[in-house]
């Protein structure tokens, strides 16, 4: 297939394809990080994860409209405000949901699965009633559109680089919170031994609530960022949920490193295969490979060693 093309052409495509893979990697990490925290640290299967993302997208859309009408001079930078608001909105909704629904269902994973599935349907219909059934178009500032002309033949999407930068930043923050801050120590203590953690004076209920809120808040930021590359509609969250779970489960449920490693391997496989085969075939082969690996390693790529 490459016979007709010059070396420089192929080099340029190779570079752009490399970036395409890295962008897909960032997208996967960003959408899976929130779920990895909730699923990995708390053992809650949150089927409504996609809807928390879309809440972030709708917040971005509302912010965009509000800024355009009230303070047009702010428009070039509105996206940063929107992401903060998205984090707050999704995080707050997450804490509310934890308080009203999830905390009654700890230790009943199958019931949480059903309950959060129901929640996702409720949220979808709520979005439809509030924002209308049609998709909304989120307008972006001019500088975030288009591509960066690296050389004559190499163009890199600016929004892709933006997502990459954002993913790196959020990953660092999450690792800092969970592994260096004292609150993170409390979270990990609760994960390892809830009773003991309570006995040494950790307010486990509060830790649960904030952990869930953090996971949902990150989903909100992801949703906000994805308005640049995807659609915003009542059911758009469903587009992400399968890939998100795939990344988290394949990585090993309780490991954040695993999530990142799994996002990397899935995205590289996917984008390379997509280039040489077609879109549908790439997906099929990626899924088959994952299933095969999970048959050999049911605990995922990186599993915490626990005593059986």
């Amino acid at each position, binding site marked *: 297939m490459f016979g007709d093309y010059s070396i420089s052409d192929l080099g340029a495509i190779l570079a752009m394809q490399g970036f395409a893979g890295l962008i897909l990697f960032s997208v996967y990490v960003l959408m899976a990080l929130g779920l990895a925290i909730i699923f990995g640290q708390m053992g809650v299967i949150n089927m409504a994860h996609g809807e928390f993302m879309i809440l972030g997208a709708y917040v971005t859309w509302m912010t965009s409209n509000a800024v355009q009408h009230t303070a047009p001079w702010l428009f070039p930078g509105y996206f940063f405000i929107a992401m903060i608001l998205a984090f707050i909105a999704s995080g707050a909704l997450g804490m509310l949901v934890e308080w009203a629904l999830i905390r009654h269902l700890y230790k009943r994973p199958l019931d949480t699965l059903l309950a959060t599935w129901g929640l996702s349907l409720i949220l979808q219909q709520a979005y439809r009633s509030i924002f209308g059934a049609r998709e909304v178009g989120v307008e*972006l500032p001019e500088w975030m559109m288009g591509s960066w002309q690296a050389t004559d033949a190499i163009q890199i999407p600016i929004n892709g680089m933006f997502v990459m930068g954002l993913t790196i930043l959020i990953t660092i923050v999450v690792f800092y919170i969970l592994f260096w801050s004292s609150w993170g120590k409390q979270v990990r203590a609760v994960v390892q031994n809830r009773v003991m953690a309570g006995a040494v004076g950790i307010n486990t209920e509060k830790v649960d609530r904030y952990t869930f809120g953090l996971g949902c808040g990150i989903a909100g930021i992801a949703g906000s960022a994805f308005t640049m590359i995807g659609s915003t509609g009542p059911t758009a969250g469903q587009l992400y949920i399968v890939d998100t779970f795939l990344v988290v489960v394949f990585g090993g449920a309780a490991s954040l490193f695993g999530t990142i490693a799994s996002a990397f391997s899935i995205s590289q496989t996917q984008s390379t295969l997509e280039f040489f085969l077609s*879109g549908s075939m790439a997906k099929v082969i990626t899924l088959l490979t994952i299933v095969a690996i999970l048959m050999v390693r049911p605990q995922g790529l990186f599993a915490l060693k626990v005593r059986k």
Partner: protein
Amino acid sequence: MSDETKPGLKSPLRRKLLMGMAALPAVSMLGRPAFADVPATSAVNTTGLAVTDSEVTVGILHSVTGTMAISETGSVEAEKLAIEQINAAGGVLGRKIKFIQEDGASDWPTFAEKAKKLLVNDKCAAVMGCWTSASRKAVLPVFEQYNGMLYYPTFYEGLEQSKNVIYTGQEATQQIIAGLDWVNKTKGAKSFYLLGSDYIWPRTSNKIARKHIENHLQGCKVVGEEYFPLGSTQFNSVINKIKLTKPDVIYAIIVGGSNVAFYKQLKAAGIDLSKQTLLTISVTEDEIDGIGGENIAGAYACMKYFQSLDNPNNKTFVPAFKKMWGEKTVIGDVTQAAYLGPWLWKLTVEKAQSFDIDKIAAASPGVEFKGAPEGYVRIHENHHLWSKTRVGRAKADGQYELIYETADLVEPDPFPKGYQ
């Protein structure tokens, strides 16, 4: 065309006059039907449909919840507008249309169940509904078994024909061939890259497109053909392949949320649609709302209706639609086709002088609707519509600018020879 011959959209003044005239006899002859020439129910309804002396019941069957609600909302709105306008103009055979709306909930078995309910329990005289081919395939056996009449609005892949369905959208050859001929002739396009979402409509359509390109267009070739699972949001790899193969035309049949992702990523990857020709048959004004006009400006779409069409029918239709559903709503190809449903049914009933399904099915061929917003349409023997095919170019404000239209109506050909 002259105002007098239009059975469809009348000027507001004319409609007021009609309503006034309709009210006069109603006052003087209480208890009698409002129109002097209203035929007796026993004569026009011999099969027990929901028709009374003053009312006739039809069904509306679309998804207002679930994934497809995004697309089907416009169709529901158009059908309700048409019904309201028909009622304001005196109804059908002197009877007001009452509608029962059911929700298919984006779930094909639900569509079949609700279709059965509308036909068996409610005895609907006609049903306007369905959007995806999957939902139509699910209800088709129901309509054939219980002898109902379905007016189906979406452009679709063809390969179907039923006594019990009137297809008010275009079938694939109507929509595809004229567009390919146009892009070949005016843009000198020789190489095509075919893209689509992975299900029956894009695959069948691209098959027709490929046959036409390879067999009927001189020296043209397909340099790539690819499909993506419904809901895909990542297109960077295929965009790189497009950059490598440099096709004259990107021919895209991507639907749903994927559409938004595709056009946003195309723009972000530096493909400038003012230089790269892109022809689509799946993006109407409705979809542009979600994609954002600035992301798709410059692309060409080939279908039969654009909101911006400049003809007298459309100039009354668009304001009427916006008055009923809000200034910001847009009207896409399928929405317009959905609007045709109730009108075509009314005209057919009046031609047949009967609500009986068999008589309507037989009377349908030849029924013409001069008030169609797209211009003039006529029902073919095969229950599809003769219609013009048009090419429009997307502008940043989310509207299409008409670039080309076929000189004559294009014949519907749901089973095209040499294209299967």
